[in-house]
């Protein structure tokens, strides 16, 4: 009985070890490729928002992790800085709309130093196919309606869908999705323009082993 249990335990252990080594080996072989994929995916989006001629730094590397859950929708979000000849000229902020129709909507918004929106791209979402997914550039060019806009005050009432008397179209049959995205973009843009100096000066720490999240001094937002 005891001997049998020992034998079974031994066999089970051997299987566990063999299986784990196989997974470790595959992980080791694919890790670089996976990182490369994620990087190129992000770079494609970044380059669409901030054209190559606008910067001479490595956008992907010049990235800072920011803890501003209120404004950006998640505990920490990366912000990419664009600079040309040492002059900072744009920020690409990753942010999350938490009140979509179905889960979080992750997006990237780029603003220039004057606070003008250069572009918005949705990175990941689970909105209803055929209705809410018009926030993807692949499905509809609605997301381009942010281009060139500014946020004039923290609760700029123009930043809403038409049904709420704002300046952005809603979609037929889907108001919740665009409303969530418009609000989240407004918050992210306002945060970016109010803190732009601090964000440009924050350390590039996205890829550090244990990044110390920059707790930049948030500008007091007066009414």
């Amino acid at each position, binding site marked *: 009985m005891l001997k049998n249990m020992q034998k079974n335990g031994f066999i089970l252990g051997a299987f*566990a070890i063999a299986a784990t080594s196989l997974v470790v080996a595959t992980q080791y072989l694919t890790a670089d490729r996976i990182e490369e994929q994620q990087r190129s995916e992000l770079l494609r989006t970044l380059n669409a928002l901030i054209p190559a001629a606008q910067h001479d730094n490595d956008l992907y590397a010049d990235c800072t992790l920011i803890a501003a859950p209120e404004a950006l929708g998640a505990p920490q979000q990366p912000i990419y800085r664009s600079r040309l000849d040492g002059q900072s000229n744009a920020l690409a902020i990753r942010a999350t709309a938490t009140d979509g129709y179905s889960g979080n909507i992750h997006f990237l918004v780029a603003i220039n130093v004057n606070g003008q929106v250069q572009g918005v791209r949705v990175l990941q979402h689970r909105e209803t196919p055929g209705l809410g997914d018009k926030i993807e550039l692949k499905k509809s060019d609605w997301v381009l309606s942010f281009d060139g806009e500014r946020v004039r005050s923290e609760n700029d009432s123009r930043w809403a869908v038409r049904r709420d008397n704002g300046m952005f179209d809603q979609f037929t049959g889907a108001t919740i999705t665009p409303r969530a995205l418009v609000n989240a973009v407004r918050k992210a843009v306002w945060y970016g323009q109010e803190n732009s100096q601090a964000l440009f000066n924050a350390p590039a720490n996205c890829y550090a082993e244990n990044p110390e999240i920059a707790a930049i001094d948030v500008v007091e937002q007066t009414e």
Partner: protein
Amino acid sequence: MSSEFHTLSKDGLWENNPALVQLLGLCPLLAVSGTITNALGLGIATLLVLVGSNITVSLVRNFVPNEIRIPVFVIVIATFVTLVELTMNAFTYGLYMALGIFIPLIVTNCAIIGRAEAYASKNNWYKAGFDGLMMGLGFAAVLVALGAMRELIGQGTLFDGAELLLGEWASSLRVQLIEFDYPLLIAILPPGAFIGLGFLIAGKNWLDARKREKLAKAPVEKAQRARVTHVS
């Protein structure tokens, strides 16, 4: 010998199809059959896991005592799913993002452990591998059929997003067959998956019933044959 392989293919693809007859693995089947691309991606992933786990289970069946066979099967299946997941993450990144949680969830597809227990643990490795291949193909075929139905009715296209699975050249595969002013949402949403699967099962049963009827009508002719030259 060959007749055994014949039976295995017939079982996997039709008679004992994991999705239409055994009704196993419905969770991924219903969840990711919104487009052909997603369906095909998950179908291929499941197929690879099935073949891999069947062959491995069959190879180790003589070393594994009966009492611990289930945990061993689970380890084997989980390993193959992780390997497939890592590989998809590395080489078909777009599809990996589109399928999301359903790749790791292949591990919970009862069709896989079902085949390991029912077939692979009792037969040699090439038969087990072949059984995995046929069961996988049967499952993938139902997935793709359901994906095609839902995609066509829901958004009027076929092969939308094929480039996620096959590379950039495949974006030209996309065909818009019907233009909707308003998509037929029910087909894309989960209820559409249930209804679609219901129709597929009903269709299969109807075909089977018709076949049985034909057989029942024709026995007289067969009985007239005096000598049976070949017993199959």
